[in-house]
């Protein structure tokens, strides 16, 4: 079974440019997460989707960040315009939706963004 797929693995852009990251979750996983991981830190949740609905986007900086999961499968996270402080790893994870609140999250390899 294929794991969570993310692309690109690396991205280098100039500040003020737009950038987009793509994530394809594990087949059948209803819940998708985007995390931000700064260097030397643990991941922090940006947004969580259940199917195509964003059920928790309270930590997404909505002035420059946006995300979509139109058909409830793959997802795109966009930054426009990028700032120097956005340099980080962006992780995607997915989990099956169960009745219990524990849904084991499976992570992708992440996209390392460098903003120059």
């Amino acid at each position: 079974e294929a794991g969570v797929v993310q692309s690109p693995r690396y991205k280098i852009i100039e500040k003020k440019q737009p950038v987009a990251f793509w994530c394809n979750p594990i087949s059948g996983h209803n819940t998708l997460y985007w995390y931000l991981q700064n260097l030397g830190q643990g991941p922090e949740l940006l947004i969580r989707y259940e199917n195509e609905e964003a059920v928790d986007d309270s930590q997404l900086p909505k002035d420059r960040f946006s995300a979509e999961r139109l058909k409830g499968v793959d997802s795109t996270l966009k930054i426009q315009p990028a700032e120097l402080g956005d340099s980080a790893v962006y992780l995607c994870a997915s989990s099956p939706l169960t009745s219990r609140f524990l849904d084991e999250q499976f992570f992708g390899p992440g996209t390392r963004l460098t903003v120059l």
Partner: protein
Amino acid sequence: AQTVTQSQPEMSVQEAETVTLSCTYDTSESDYYLFWYKQPPSRQMILVIRQEAYKQQNATENRFSVNFQKAAKSFSLKISDSQLGDAAMYFCAFLGSGSARQLTFGSGTQLTVLP
């Protein structure tokens, strides 16, 4: 809000020896899970072990075991017979029943395994 603290930014262990990574957390919830994730240089987060708060028995997965002290809000990871492949960043994480499935991670411990 929950907080997870890992007070050891770096640890090292000799191959075949045992090492313990520390984690403390703070929460007012009574129903929750605790996790240890491993993140090698490839950046892929891999679940190592999880503990359900309502279970008194400490979780064990092969060479990995935890010491869960609920009253002290402590959750340490013991790696026995350390192998070179265990070298990675280890993150402690918390998931509460009231957290809307939001994992809260600690800042990580970088483990080096010396040959």
